């Protein structure tokens, strides 16, 4: 079923690509700059609002496809999406314009914040505020982890692989690449393609 769905998606893609060939590098940069400057609390909804709803540069199905690729690859969702959408619109230059645009506002802000924090970071007032902020960030990451688990973990073995990863990194102090390769390979082999139903029944 997903194969036919994919065919349907691949077809109009060529059409929308020609339609969007009029998008200029400057427009791409500006649109991603705006997203980079306004996307408080998570980039993905802002990307969808801007690229799909406002500009029609990508349709909803393609957006979801690109997002799933962005999530599987290393790199942040936001910057991977910038690369994919920029490339779709104007090739390599489009990608460069998009990633610079989306990163610029946050970088400048954190540059200034970093300087301010270095000078005033040890004031009681700032330390107290940051203690609250750091605790909130932990809650926020837990929320992200729970959302992702609900969406992409299937079956108890996935939770075993997840737990193995946590134990390897936090308890056994294994490096992330080693953990990724070993547990990742195990998990990929576990999810290996099974051709016939007979095969999966005997397992």
């Amino acid at each position, binding site marked *: 079923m997903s194969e036919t769905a994919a065919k349907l998606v691949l077809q109009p893609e060529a059409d929308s690509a020609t339609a969007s060939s009029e998008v200029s590098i400057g427009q791409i940069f500006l649109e991603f700059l705006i997203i980079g400057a306004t996307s408080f609390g998570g980039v993905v909804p802002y990307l969808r609002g801007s690229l799909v709803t406002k500009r029609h540069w990508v349709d909803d199905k393609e957006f979801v496809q690109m997002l799933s690729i962005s999530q599987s690859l290393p790199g942040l969702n936001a910057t991977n999406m910038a690369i994919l959408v920029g490339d779709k619109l104007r090739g390599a230059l489009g990608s460069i314009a998009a990633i610079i645009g989306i990163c610029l506002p946050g970088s400048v*802000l*954190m540059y200034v914040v970093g300087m301010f924090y270095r000078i005033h970071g040890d004031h009681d007032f700032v330390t107290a*505020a940051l203690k609250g*902020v750091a605790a*909130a960030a932990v*809650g926020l990451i837990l929320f992200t982890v729970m959302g992702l*688990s609900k969406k992409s973990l299937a079956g108890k073995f996935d939770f075993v*692989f997840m737990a193995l990863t946590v134990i390897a990194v936090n308890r056994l102090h294994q490096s992330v690449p080693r*953990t990724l390769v070993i547990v990742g390979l195990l998990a990929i082999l576990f999810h290996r393609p099974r051709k016939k139903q007979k095969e999966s029944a005997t397992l």
Partner: protein
Amino acid sequence: MNQIPALVRVFAYLSILTVGGGMAAFPEMKILTVDVHQWLTFSQLIHLYSVGQMAPGPNMMMIVSIGQWAGGILGAIAVLAAFFGPTALLAFIVAKAWKKLEKWPWRTSIQQGLAPVSIGLLLAGCFTMAKGAITGTETAAIAVAVLLILLQYKVNPALLVLASAGVGILTFMPK
């Protein structure tokens, strides 16, 4: 004395580890930037990451602050290029191949297999951070409250982080 080459090496390496999200690289970021190179302290790293959650754009922009501390404006630019360059190039190249592999059965296996591992890496990053950020009942209560509010209501997370700064001032200011 010149930290730029070390900054580039460290952040290019961390770049590849961000599978599933920036938090996946956090345990190694702590080891490399705090323990090995001593560009900042663990609590400074936690503070910068957390403040970064209120900034717009990709959520690891706090790396700019580390680059700036260790190497000035050039350090900041070097860190940005090192952290985003490799994965950007990878996304650019692999995404095209990935689309063509639509029918390759292992493609689904790879996606399904990487999902629990990348979530595990995020969780491991979260625990590393919690070790420094959750220091008592009050901080634990703030973290739980944020989690419960996000699960229950549709609130912008950046606003909750901001509100927690206020809670922090009320709770932790020395009297």
